[in-house]
């Protein structure tokens, strides 16, 4: 597209609106949301169009009409002072809504602005504002409102302003936490580096993220202020000279036994409006949360496969040949421990369809063998590992094929049977050591507990074994690590602990999912060393999921290369490294930089001799 055919940048507002239309449409499609919106629209319109809806003056009292029933032009009759009830109801909507709006606006303005500033700049402003907010929150609202009335007189507007101030902490807390989260996002840093002013960053990058929660909070606060305002008026503490729903309640209360219907109309108005506001807030929140999930999933899937965009970056083209390249097996008489055949795994989608992520995977792990499952993100390697363990996330299930482990087909086993198998015969080493240890228990108890349960041994013996294991996995002071909490040890240590846990019950098969990816290179080398030693000593089979060819070269006997849910090439590790046959495997090997030439020094005639670099 050339610039001339597209002379202007699209209006920023328009495209943001465009990006959010689906939400508005979803709100309208949601039954509850639609009802709430319609009710709110009716109430607001009635308030605006009050003079058109009724010819009567809401404050004109006429002695002849005292408590008169409904008649033409006066659909709801008259109250105890001979005022038209319908007129008071629609004009009352004006005052009630304006009052609520005022309270909400004051609360939002104070809370959002201070929350934004405190969240973005932090430091002293945060301390001061947190103090102020805590004090305001500690104040009893009703007492403050009564005191304000005593000093300032019975004004609806003043009362609502005071109430708005009292409610501002609700906005402050909300905005503050949201901003603290957003300001650490890298796009905020990138905007700062781009020279964007703080005010524009707050307006453009931060406000856009906290906008929806603010709307939800505002609807809730408006509902509360309608109720509080009605309460004050009902107690006779409000301004009696204006028609509000609360004042109507107060008047009607006096005549409750004569004409109970007088109570009905303002009560209904208050109830319906408040409920509509709360429902609006709730559906908006629900819709936002719902939109969050599939969107994230979609984003991830965009990663998994080649995306919709036909761009140079998209992954290597999927081979049309679905054939798996199988290298000749080396003669091996070790018995087969795990045989996965034609495994297919899929995820249920909200629309009822199934997205298949593993598409006919077959692999074989012999006793005492280390089998590497290598592939890029989204190739289905982790999904394969999880389905062997029966640990697929919600929505995922095995669609077909078999997973035969030591003569039993795990694909057909029940959850209870798998629970007995996991930990005891099949162990798991996860990718993120830190998030797989419970921060609220000591490392020792997290090692002892499974042994007591799975092996049925007494606690004291389990502790002895745990200490021996910690020493075995190379932790220098096992007693100290045993008593420590996970946050007190480094990531490498945590991974050693998890490895100790994995081998604690003498499993036959260990499934390791990217066990060194989260670790530094030097730590990775140590962990690989440990895994190799343990594997030799315990003669355990290992299925290791990784994206790193170095790890495969270091540990594995056999390797299977996965792409887009299939195994494209499989065989003994040396055969594959020497002679990768599948084009995808070859392209992966070509992308490895290790053996590449260095770039060499900068070509500049003048700097040849200026290079005694400061080596420290």
């Amino acid at each position, binding site marked *: 597209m050339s610039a001339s055919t597209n002379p202007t940048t699209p209006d920023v507002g328009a495209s943001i609106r465009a990006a959010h239309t689906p939400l508005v449409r979803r709100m309208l499609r949601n039954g509850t949301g639609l009802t709430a919106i319609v009710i709110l629209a009716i109430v607001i319109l009635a308030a605006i169009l009050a003079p058109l809806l009724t010819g009567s003056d809401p404050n004109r009292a006429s002695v002849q009409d005292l408590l008169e029933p409904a008649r033409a032009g006066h659909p709801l009759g008259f109250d105890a002072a001979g005022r038209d009830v319908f007129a008071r109801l629609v004009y009352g909507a004006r005052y009630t809504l304006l009052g609520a709006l005022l309270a909400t606006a004051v609360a939002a303005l104070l809370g959002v602005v201070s929350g934004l500033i405190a969240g973005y700049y932090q430091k002293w402003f945060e301390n001061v504002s947190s103090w102020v907010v805590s004090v305001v929150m500690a104040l009893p609202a009703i007492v403050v409102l009564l005191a304000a009335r005593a000093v300032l007189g019975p004004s609806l507007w003043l009362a609502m302003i005071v109430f708005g101030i009292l409610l501002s902490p609700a906005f402050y807390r909300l905005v503050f936490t949201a901003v603290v989260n957003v300001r650490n996002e890298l796009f905020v840093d990138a905007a700062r580096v781009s020279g964007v002013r703080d005010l524009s960053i707050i307006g453009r990058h931060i406000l856009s993220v906290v906008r929806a929660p603010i709307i939800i909070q505002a609807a809730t606060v408006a509902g509360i202020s309608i109720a509080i305002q009605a309460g004050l008026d009902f107690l006779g503490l409000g301004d009696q000279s204006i028609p509000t729903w609360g004042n109507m309640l107060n008047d009607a209360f006096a005549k409750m036994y004569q004409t109970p219907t007088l109570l009905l109309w303002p009560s209904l108005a208050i109830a319906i409006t408040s409920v509509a506001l709360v429902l609006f807030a709730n559906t908006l929140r629900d819709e936002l949360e719902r939109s969050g999930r599939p969107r994230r999933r979609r984003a991830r899937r965009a990663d998994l496969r080649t995306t919709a965009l036909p761009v140079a970056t998209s992954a290597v083209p999927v081979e049309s040949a679905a054939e798996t390249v199988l290298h000749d097996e080396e003669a091996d008489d070790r018995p087969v421990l795990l045989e996965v055949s034609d495994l297919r795994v899929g995820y249920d989608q909200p629309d009822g369809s199934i997205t298949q992520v593993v598409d006919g995977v077959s692999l074989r792990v012999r006793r005492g063998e280390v089998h590497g499952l290598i592939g890029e993100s989204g190739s289905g390697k982790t999904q394969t590992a999880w389905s062997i363990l029966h640990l697929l996330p919600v929505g995922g299930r095995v669609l077909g094929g078999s997973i035969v482990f030591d003569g039993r087909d795990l694909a057909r086993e029940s959850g209870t049977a798998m629970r007995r198998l996991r930990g005891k015969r099949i162990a798991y080493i996860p990718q993120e050591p830190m998030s797989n240890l419970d921060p609220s228990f000591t490392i020792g108890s997290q090692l002892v507990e499974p042994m007591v349960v799975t092996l049925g041994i007494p606690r004291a013996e389990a502790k002895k074994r745990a200490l021996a294991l910690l020493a075995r996995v190379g932790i220098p002071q096992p007693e100290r690590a045993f008593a420590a909490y996970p946050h007190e040890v480094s990531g490498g240590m945590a991974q050693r602990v998890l490895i100790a846990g994995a081998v604690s019950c003498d499993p036959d098969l260990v499934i390791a999912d990217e066990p060194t990816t989260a670790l530094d290179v030097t730590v990775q080398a140590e962990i690989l060393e440990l895994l190799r030693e343990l594997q030799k000593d315990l003669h355990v089979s290992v299925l290791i999921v990784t994206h790193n060819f170095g790890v495969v070269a270091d540990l594995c006997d056999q390797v299977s290369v996965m792409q887009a849910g299939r195994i494209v090439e499989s065989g003994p590790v040396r055969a594959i490294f020497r002679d990768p046959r599948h084009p995808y495997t070859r*392209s992966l090997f070509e992308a490895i930089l290790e053996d590449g030439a260095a770039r060499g020094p900068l070509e*500049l005639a003048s700097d040849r001799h200026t290079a005694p670099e400061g*080596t420290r």
Partner: protein
Amino acid sequence: MTGTTAEPLLVVDDLVVEYPTKGLRRPPFRALKGASLDIRPGECVGLVGESGSGKTTLGRAVLGLAPVTGGSITFRGREIGNLSRSQRRSLSDDIQVVFQDPYSSLNPSLTIEQTLSEPLRVKHVSAADASRRVRELLDRVGLPSDAAGRLPREFSGGQRQRIAIARALALEPALIVCDEPVSALDLSTQARVLDLFLEIQEATGVSYLFVSHDLAVVRHLSHRVAVMYHGEIVEFGDGDQVTSAPENPYTQRLLLAAPVADPDRQEQRRADRRRLLDQQREAEAQASV
């Protein structure tokens, strides 16, 4: 003769960065303990280190995103270590950034066009010019121009990283701080994005401070390499030499720790590493006697 000189573009001298820690009288956390390096125009300096070594902090200090407590950062002879926010803004045409995480570095609610034109609009480029420039930039990084109207979530990690590179290029800076820009990417995507970095440098003569934990990546791209360990630069010199025959004991360990993608050579490397560790332990023991 070209216009380039051997005068360094950026000089970081004895840089100290400290982060305050919570709690009374607790000493601040010293992320950088006197780090020095320099970058010449058109040069790529790789900065390698493990997590927590301070390499990212050094990049952030150059960008004005980390508090400089000591030492100096000089850009084109001007001290930029402790600029106010408004002075800092004027540097946005000179120093730009590509972050590691392609997911959090783009605002999810802004279209690619809005993200890319942001630095341009700050410089008061007209809407029409900005739009034209956005299309040039997308073309430059190998994305189709219809990408402009889309939201970040429609792109893969590698494509997002290209968008982040386009944003960094928008103001034609002299230096781009690249903070682990390929670490989150798959192997094959990583290779393509690295090629893009190379190609852009050759075409525009921009300098890179390329922060990474991966010696192989740094070796591929860098003219010179600095190695960081515990907040200090322990080795700085020619890229080939540092990444293949390092002198510093830590760099030696780092080099031998990375597994090679070849079973036999990896076996060799494993043996080398064990030997090196033994030697270093021995040397240490002797030194302490």
